[in-house]
């Protein structure tokens, strides 16, 4: 069992005929993901890399049994696409790659998804990869190596950097989850940590946080109740206050949102915090060692 997705998860791509949608569909297929359908209004009946395209999500679900969707639809039409997926009565998880969706819309979608029991990853996220099984999103499959480290992150390329360090040091990964860089995202650190805790394929977790919000503090509190060890990294020690650092959600308003405050929260919960991406594998080796000795 993996977390969130399985090797045989039937995947739908919304916005499959767009430039990014088509490009990443091919890469996901190459990785072995089971993509059963695409949706692009007005393009029904065509196909992209051999994947049949439908006009509507409900139609695609009825015809192919799709159960997870990856959304590449541009921001001005993504909101509609997200509601359509939730209303399709078949899609149980949505990965939203699209960035720049207005915050009030995501706030409504968040609550709508929760009340309809549909999972949401993102928006503005790189997706999820169940190593060796399936990839939903835009993560570069080649850097991952099969193993037992779960990775959960708010960022994209920084995650790749750390995953690459882990792979090179011989620490393969079970699942890697990108939560997204916006102020409001569908899934929190705590929810993913809970899934890793229950996942028999995962032995330790690497958490990659950054400035903004207090999701890391909640995670630190949750980790104290976990049996599996966690190593953290927090980006943005050098970030000035009240300035947005690229990600819409990476901004420090109150003191609690700074990298220092987050690092302190982890350290006071006895969670080791790496000072650089390359230090992550060393800390993982240490916690696994200590853990084995328990």
């Amino acid at each position: 069992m993996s977390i969130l997705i399985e090797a045989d998860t039937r995947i739908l791509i919304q916005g499959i005929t767009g430039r990014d949608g088509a490009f990443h569909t091919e890469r996901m297929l190459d990785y072995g993901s089971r993509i059963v359908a695409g949706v692009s209004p007005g393009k029904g009946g065509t196909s992209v890399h051999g994947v049949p395209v439908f006009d509507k999500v409900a139609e695609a679900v009825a015809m192919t049994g799709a159960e997870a969707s990856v959304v590449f639809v541009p921001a001005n039409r993504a909101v509609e696409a997200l509601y359509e997926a939730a209303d399709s009565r078949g899609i149980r998880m949505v990965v939203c790659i699209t960035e720049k969706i207005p915050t009030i819309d995501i706030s409504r979608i968040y609550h709508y998804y929760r009340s309809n029991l549909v999972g949401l990853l993102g928006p503005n996220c790189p997706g999820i990869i169940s190593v060796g099984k399936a990839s939903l999103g835009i993560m570069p499959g080649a850097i991952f190596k099969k193993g037992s480290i779960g990775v959960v992150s708010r960022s994209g390329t920084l995650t790749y950097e750390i995953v690459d360090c882990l792979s090179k040091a011989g620490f393969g990964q079970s699942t890697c989850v990108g939560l997204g860089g916006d102020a409001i995202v569908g899934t929190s650190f705590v929810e993913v940590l809970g899934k890793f805790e229950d996942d028999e394929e995962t032995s330790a977790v690497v958490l990659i946080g950054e400035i903004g919000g207090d999701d890391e503090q909640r995670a630190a509190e949750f980790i104290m109740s976990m049996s599996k060890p966690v190593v953290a990294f927090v980006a943005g020690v050098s970030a000035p206050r009240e300035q947005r650092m690229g990600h819409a959600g990476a901004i420090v308003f109150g003191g609690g949102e700074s990298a220092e405050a987050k690092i302190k929260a982890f350290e006071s919960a006895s969670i080791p915090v790496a000072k650089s991406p390359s230090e992550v594998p060393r800390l993982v080796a240490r916690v696994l060692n200590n853990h084995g000795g328990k």
Partner: protein
Amino acid sequence: MKLHEYQAHKLLRDFGVPSPEGEVVFDVSSAVEAYNRLGSPVVLKAQVLCGGRGKAGGVRLAKTAEEVERAAAALFSLQIKGFMVEALLIQKAVDFDEEIFFSLSMDRSSKCPCVIVSPHGGVDIETLALEKPESIYRIPIDPIEGITPQKSLEIAEILAYSDGIQGLRDLINKLYSAFVGLDALLIEINPLVRTPRGDFLALDAKIILDENGLYRHPQLDFLTKDRCDDPLLARAKELGISFLPLQGEIGCIVNGAGLAMATMDAILARGASPANFLDVGGSSNMTKIEVGFELILRNANVKAIIINIFGGITRCDEIARGVIIAKKKLNTSVPIFARMKGTNSESALKILSSADIVTSETMDELIETATSFLMA
């Protein structure tokens, strides 16, 4: 995007949120003219995009034309937290009995718009949180149903005496309409005052707009045009580059916001300091690199440039070509240190080495090479 107070008042009035009569002026003589139209007394308020204006002496009361002239001249020469005062809002002074703190913001924890109120307004919320924390109330609003009659009553009852409830409920509804209608991340009215006649007035107004929502408000275009008088920054924004100038000496070009921050942190950890944050974004192309170089090299303090790319979608060879072109075009002698990893990195490294650019295998090596060069 933060707005000036005068812009915030203007937008809020369109939603029926009243504020004292006022005019915005950009020089001393217009301030006096505004005073002549508004009548005595007036309040002159420096328009700066930061808090702490009152404490910095950015608000003055004036009762005569001479006082207005003196106050305006003083305010225009003021610098508040590094911001120059370029505009003043001249408002007719009003009497009031009560000062309320009211804000509506997007709450990251509950993923809801959240009303924060206190009947003890007029001081900043941080001070209030220290001195009278029990007087601050947080009321989350369900974004799907909006402000229900029960919610507006709940909020109004916290704030007003029996005779003001209905007026306050109307105002709360208008503020919420503005919050949603403008795609705001924050609307803060502090103080929201009640006049002796029982009317409510927004004496101050702070708005932060959600940049992701701007595309559906073409009527707000004037706000961005007002401030983007820098064509290079405008071009960078158009290309999807996030750029923020800082105080240090090492320029940074990185793909991805998280990796960009981690790169800056690593520079800092080695005792040097970053000159900027720069995320070239996904699917980076040569033009983006050129614009990035131009932005960085405008700063004469920059003594070295670090390029850290982890190519997933990004093709490293394309970035490398962009670096060569930019280096030639801008004819710069500032040393460049590059590390490129991922898609097409081998050909990228060849291209860079042929142009005498120092390349590194890992991020650690990159930072170490660049910082030791600087300290040598």
